[in-house]
């Protein structure tokens, strides 16, 4: 028997206590939506999880007015230290129920339990803890005298890190004194709806957090167009981000956008090679590559290209694809059929355009949406796989000869969200980082997140920052502005 055929080690779903159906959570109550309903499924098995009621514009209207009432009567009048107590309570409750949330997220999203257990949920709690601490210190955040909350924030989050993106948006908004109407993604509403239980356990006043699942073109659109909203925070595709920006142009609604990316991961020939290999893998195969800041373009110095590719493919062969609930799974399911089709199509295009395709030789479950980790070599800068965001486990390998060429190629994209630099030469690291046009630059690591660190994009990757003090300022009016 092969040692590496590890016996199945599935995390049990018995810990979950799910309802058959979920409504909208508006003003502290569950209500039925008027936008029909849909079934949320597990992408790993295609089995239904729960029936989700969908919001239409009338529901959004109700949710916004519930948030407004709560803002005017309770939340904006509460002291920062009192708000902080609620946030601390939420953070602690999330920690207590971490395993349950990890299982729910894995079930609904398809990402491995190892990631939800070790990364998503701990970060969610960390985000609430961090902003809980800010709630009574807004005057000292260096944002000017007497910063004021904005009002009602409309928040639209993506499906790749469902609960984490909720935390990124809800925690700073609440700490700053705003109330929120949050629309989770169509394919991953589950953990946002379970988060309602946390809010209730924490005794959060009704209407401070409203959760409205719905379709983007219905509920999302209605939220963005609603005149009672003071701020829109959106994480998602650049195409939708553009629409939102157009809608809000000329209004006094504030906007932050966190959009797509085509991150360059630059490996110099003096890098710590084995650790760089790990970083390349974390960069693009973490969360099935469903990461806006993924290091999807590997820029490797030409003189070590063959060694890197050889080591990379050897290492990839040890990745385990399969049941996301198994604790030994490295690569889970693609989140949806639509996304799988998109990844499949763009990969076929890359191949047709002349790139060499390497795909991990591994079994794939019969049911569900799966895509084997794929590496394209011999990729020209004009190839589609080198330019378009794939949002899947697909790496494009390009080469460079000098640091200047690496910088030029890394910046040669309409996006500008993330980049990685691998070198043991600290002065080169700093010089290159200085010239990269990207919001987040990792050195000798990749895809590391921390609530103290601001995150956001350059160019078409969006504007505004989430995380840290910068993330707080996105929910505050300073200098007398309102």
């Amino acid at each position, binding site marked *: 028997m092969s040692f590496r055929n590890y*016996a199945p080690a599935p995390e049990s779903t018995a810990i979950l206590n799910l309802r058959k159906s979920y409504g909208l959570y508006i003003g502290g109550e569950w209500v039925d939506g008027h936008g029909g309903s849909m079934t949320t499924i597990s992408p790993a098995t295609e089995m239904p999880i729960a029936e989700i009621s969908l919001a239409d514009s009338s529901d959004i209207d109700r949710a916004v007015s519930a948030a407004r009432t709560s803002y005017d009567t309770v939340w904006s009048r509460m002291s920062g230290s009192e708000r902080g107590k609620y946030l601390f309570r939420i953070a602690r409750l999330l920690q207590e129920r971490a395993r349950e949330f990890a299982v729910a997220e894995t079930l609904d999203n398809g990402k491995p339990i190892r990631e939800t257990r070790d990364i998503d949920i701990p970060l969610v709690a960390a985000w609430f803890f961090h902003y809980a601490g800010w709630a009574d210190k807004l005057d000292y955040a260096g944002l000017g005298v007497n910063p004021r909350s904005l009002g009602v924030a409309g928040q639209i989050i993506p499906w790749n890190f469902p609960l984490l993106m909720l935390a990124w948006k809800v925690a700073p908004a609440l700490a700053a004194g705003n109330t929120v109407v949050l629309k989770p993604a169509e394919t991953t509403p589950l953990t946002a709806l379970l988060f309602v239980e946390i809010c209730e356990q924490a005794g959060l006043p009704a209407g401070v957090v409203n959760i409205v699942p719905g379709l983007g073109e219905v509920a999302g659109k209605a939220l963005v167009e609603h005149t009672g909203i003071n701020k829109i925070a959106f994480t998602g595709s650049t195409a939708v981000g553009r629409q939102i920006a157009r809608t809000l142009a000329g209004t006094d609604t504030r906007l932050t956008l966190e959009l797509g990316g085509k991150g360059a991961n630059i490996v110099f020939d*003096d890098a710590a090679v*084995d650790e760089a290999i790990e970083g390349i893998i974390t960069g693009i195969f973490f969360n099935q590559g469903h990461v806006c800041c993924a290091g999807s373009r590997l820029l490797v110095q030409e003189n070590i290209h063959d060694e890197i590719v050889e080591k990379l493919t050897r290492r990839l062969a040890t990745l385990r694809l399969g049941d996301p609930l198994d604790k030994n799974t490295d690569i889970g399911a693609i989140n949806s059929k639509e996304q799988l089709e998109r990844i499949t199509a763009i990969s076929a295009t890359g191949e047709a355009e002349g790139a060499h395709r390497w795909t991990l030789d591994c079994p794939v479950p019969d049911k569900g949406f799966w895509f084997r980790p794929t590496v394209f070599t011999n990729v020209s800068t004009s190839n589609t796989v080198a330019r378009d965001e794939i949002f899947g486990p697909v790496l494009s390998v390009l080469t460079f000869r000098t640091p200047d060429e690496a910088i030029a190629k890394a910046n040669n994209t309409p996006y500008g969200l993330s980049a990685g630099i691998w070198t043991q030469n600290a002065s080169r690291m700093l010089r290159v980082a200085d010239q990269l046009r990207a919001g987040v630059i990792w050195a000798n690591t990749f895809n590391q997140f921390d609530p103290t660190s601001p995150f956001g994009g350059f160019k078409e990757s969006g504007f505004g920052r989430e995380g840290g003090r910068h993330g707080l300022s996105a929910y505050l009016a300073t200098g007398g502005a309102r």
Partner: protein
Amino acid sequence: MTETSDDVLALRAARLYYDESKTQDEIGDLLGITRWKAGRLLALARDSGIVSISIVDSTSEADVHAVDGILATERSRAHGVTDSTSLRAFVHGLPAVDAIGLEERAARLATRSIKNDSKRAALDTIIRLIDLTTLEGADTEGKVRSLVQKALLPDPADPTAPRVAAVCVYPDMVRHAIAALGTRVGDGVTGIAVASVATAFPSGRSTLEVKIADTRYAVAQGATEIDMVIDRGAFLSGDLDTVFNEIVAIRRACERADGTRAHLKVIFETGELRTYDNIKRASWLAILAGADFIKTSTGKVQPAATLPVTVLMLEVVRDWFVLTGERIGVKPAGGIRQSKDAIRYLVAVAEVAGEEWIHPHLFRFGASSLLNDVLLQRQKMTTGHYSGPDYVTVD
């Protein structure tokens, strides 16, 4: 005049003859005896042990001292390492190790969940890979005999428990281990190997002559494996030549008259080398110099074996295999006391170097208390409940 005894006269004669280079005639005159009597006294001095004469055949070690540079080996020459300069260039030209990245990799390997059949198989595998060790000043023949019995029959209540790979003892205890094993001595698979630490273990602070003698003695006593320590002082001061040449010399000292050779494990004492870069350099250096195994620690210095260090050494032997097709063994030693830790090491072996390394010829655990914990876990998997320390033998 009182009569002087022959013993006293023999001592005086020996002093004059050997220390002052007097002739037998001169000694006769000085002591008032005949030169024939002086000759007899000198013979008596040799026979009675007043004088001991040793003949050192230094032909094999002569080159160790003679060379200004390194004793290039077949392996090192194949990689362009022929002298001091190329040795230094080679080990300092290795890609650096990023400590944070390496530790993250090890931590991630440690999250693998090994359950049920996989765990059962892993526990048996761990036993087969153990170098059951006693390296104490208080070691005695009785202690070693007891260790050997444990190695042969780890769990008296369950004869299906496999044997360990080897016992590991000090050189003067080797003969007791050999005697206790009898015909059951082997190479870790065919029978139980007898490993002996040598080269002024654990500090390695002695002369090369002493280290060579230590090694030869252990081999002559019947050791099938030698666990040598490198000269960490020389390594840290940048004297790579000395470290390299010592390994070459000890490997030669492992040779037996019949042309066979005791296997050589090279201990770095990673707790003293401290940095991952140092450990990586030492690993390559030891392989180039002729190591069959690279080993983390003596167990006498903290930290001893750690998972990140072992992952790093596994990466080196994997790279050496890719380069040459030759597999070098790895032995973490010291501090691995629990089954769950040992299972993490197995995961690292399988995922970093490859499953081929999960074999007594290529991977060993240097451990003593680990065996009993594995046996307890094994009993638990058989009976469904935990027993307790009284259900495994104390040896």
